[in-house]
């Protein structure tokens, strides 16, 4: 078990705010994903706004209602809505309906596998559909809080109340259950497939070392962890929920067990979103006061991308090459910046 004690340290800062291409989207942003070099801003409801680095915006209507979840593998974007629909959007912005819930339940979570398999959940049921269109379902004891595919093999982690179920949709074997009291929401495998972590309803993270299911408690957060991101190569896990970015080390075989997390980029506002660069040891950080920073993981050096203004940053994303960064806010302001 590890606890940290958030501190504070103000600093002067380099700014690239003048290089940001402003994108006045005018509607709350839920998340942002790059397909190629275009940023797909998933709205809180109804539509996806597609923007180029030049600031050109087009809009695609997707759901009739709130967009509750979104995931991208860089080739397509898949979103689930409160209209019971699971919708795919390709790099051209063309939409197609993958599935419609028979009872029109909310699609709460979605995950994509490298081979094109898609998983989603409605209530207590997790669905998996492979690229051939074969569908399988699995029921967990309580509402699914989060879904994630393991980086190797076809194995789906389903977070729910009191733990995580690891389901192998293509195998007859019984699913594995990792137990830990409490409500587990977002779930994520480390890129090396050795650890599984969840963000809990309480202001804490929980983790398991998959080799022996040893527990890792990561607590001390003043608020719920709503955003987490693995740094390049999976060396660290950057998390929101405190007034600094909390980065748990995952370099050793014990993961963060018995180690202190790094506390970077302290601000007088809560960290709302984190997105690590795909290749380098830097991350983008969005705060509840609207600030966006780029932060070097090694020493915490900061570059200002957006000054604090308006509402919380709600979305951050890098393109695969790591040359473009996009951000969006709860009040529909957004921007894109070329590195």
């Amino acid at each position, binding site marked *: 078990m590890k606890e940290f004690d958030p501190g504070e340290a103000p600093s002067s800062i380099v700014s690239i705010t003048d290089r940001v291409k402003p994108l006045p989207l005018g509607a709350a942003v839920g998340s942002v994903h790059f397909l190629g070099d275009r940023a797909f801003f998933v709205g809180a409801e109804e539509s996806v706004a597609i923007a180029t680095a030049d600031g050109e915006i087009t809009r695609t209507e997707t759901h009739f209602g*709130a*967009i509750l979840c979104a995931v991208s593998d860089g080739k397509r974007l898949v979103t689930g809505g*409160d209209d019971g629909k699971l919708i795919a959007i390709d790099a051209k912005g063309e939409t197609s309906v993958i599935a419609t819930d028979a009872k029109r*339940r*909310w699609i*709460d979570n979605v995950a994509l596998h490298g081979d094109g398999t898609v998983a989603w959940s409605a209530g207590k049921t997790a669905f998996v559909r492979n690229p051939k269109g074969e569908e399988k379902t699995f029921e967990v004891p309580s509402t699914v809080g989060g879904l994630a595919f393991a980086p190797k093999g076809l194995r789906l982690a389903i977070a729910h109340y009191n733990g995580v179920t690891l389901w192998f949709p293509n195998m007859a074997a019984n699913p594995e259950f990792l137990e830990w009291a409490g*409500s587990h929401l977002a779930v994520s495998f480390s890129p090396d497939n050795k650890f599984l972590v969840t963000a809990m309803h*309480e202001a804490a993270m929980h983790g398991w070392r998959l080799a022996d299911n040893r527990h890792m408690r990561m607590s001390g957060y003043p608020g719920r962890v709503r955003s987490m991101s693995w740094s390049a190569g999976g060396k660290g896990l950057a998390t929101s929920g405190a007034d600094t970015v909390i980065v748990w080390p995952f370099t050793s075989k014990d993961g963060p067990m018995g180690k202190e997390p790094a506390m970077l980029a302290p601000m007088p506002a809560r960290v709302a979103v984190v997105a690590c660069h795909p290749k380098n040891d830097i991350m983008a950080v969005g705060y509840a006061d609207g600030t966006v920073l780029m932060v070097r993981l090694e020493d915490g050096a900061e570059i200002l991308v957006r000054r604090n203004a308006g509402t919380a940053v709600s979305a951050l994303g890098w393109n695969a090459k790591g040359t473009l960064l996009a951000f969006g806010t709860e009040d529909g302001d957004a921007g894109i910046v070329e590195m």
Partner: protein
Amino acid sequence: MAEASQKIPVTVLTGYLGAGKTTLLNRILSENHGKKYAVIVNEFGEIGIDNDLIIGADEEVFEMNNGCVCCTVRGDLVRIMDGLMKRKGKFDAIIVETTGLADPAPVAQTFFVDEDVQKNARLDAVVTVADAKWLSDRLKDAPEAKNQIAFADVIVLNKTDLVSKAELAEVEARIRGINPYAKLHRTERCQVGISDVLERGAFDLDRILEIEPDFLEAGDGHDHDHDHHHGHDHDHHHQDHGHGLKHYHDEDMQSLSLRSDKPLDPTKFMPWLQNLVATEGQKILRSKGILAFTGDDDRYVFQGVHMMLEGDHQRKWKDGEKRESRVVFIGRELPEQAIRDGFEQCITT
């Protein structure tokens, strides 16, 4: 507290099986009020109003991981509130309907415990629909029904056309034996004014102005306009009081009212209250208080659900206003004497 008004009000609608919850809900939704509601229900199908958002819930009650057994929340509500907040501006208020056997506490506690929920929404009131014909029986054999009455801010005593005057007096007296503080409305087919059940502000600290028992207004079954002048109302019913209500004392659910003309010592009262809810919180369903502290010109108000408390300085005591402290607990098997003694110890001598 100004921001409280921007938060979306949430009404919790409870009531034992068959009391008429769905009737009340349909009544609220179909009335021409120009408002849109997001309604969280357990069973689809019985409600069909196109204009509103209807969301199915699973009523999943979770224990919080803080070692406190009565700190339960509705996990599904946390998720639904997250989703609903993406549609902010599309509806004016939220109504949560619970199943007939549900305990209202986890629903209420969800709005105390979860930071994100609290940021966007505020609990407005717990409204309990009760069946005038069967409630007396249910209070004997269904602890859930008793919980719902004890927890209520507003009680809609429905199906009054199916009982005699004497039966009605009996069931009202039983309700008052458990919860003398809720607003009580006698109805047939849940015909009650919307303003009597929605936008009550029962959990709004700023509106904990009146924690007097509601006996005196209770007889006012045919007048749903509660904007009338209270002074008149009180006078009117005092005349009736001589041949009024029977007084019941429920065996296991009671309310306890404490009062002091002398100011309380905040260094004694606050630790006492916190300790009380920490040790007896499972038994205490609701608590409320208006407090006059020694050397403090502000009124202090608090309210609680089981072990969760919130309180704040409310406003200055007015000139000529009686600086009196009043505290109310509603709960099961309350250790009355211990609570009274504890309260006495907090009075500044």
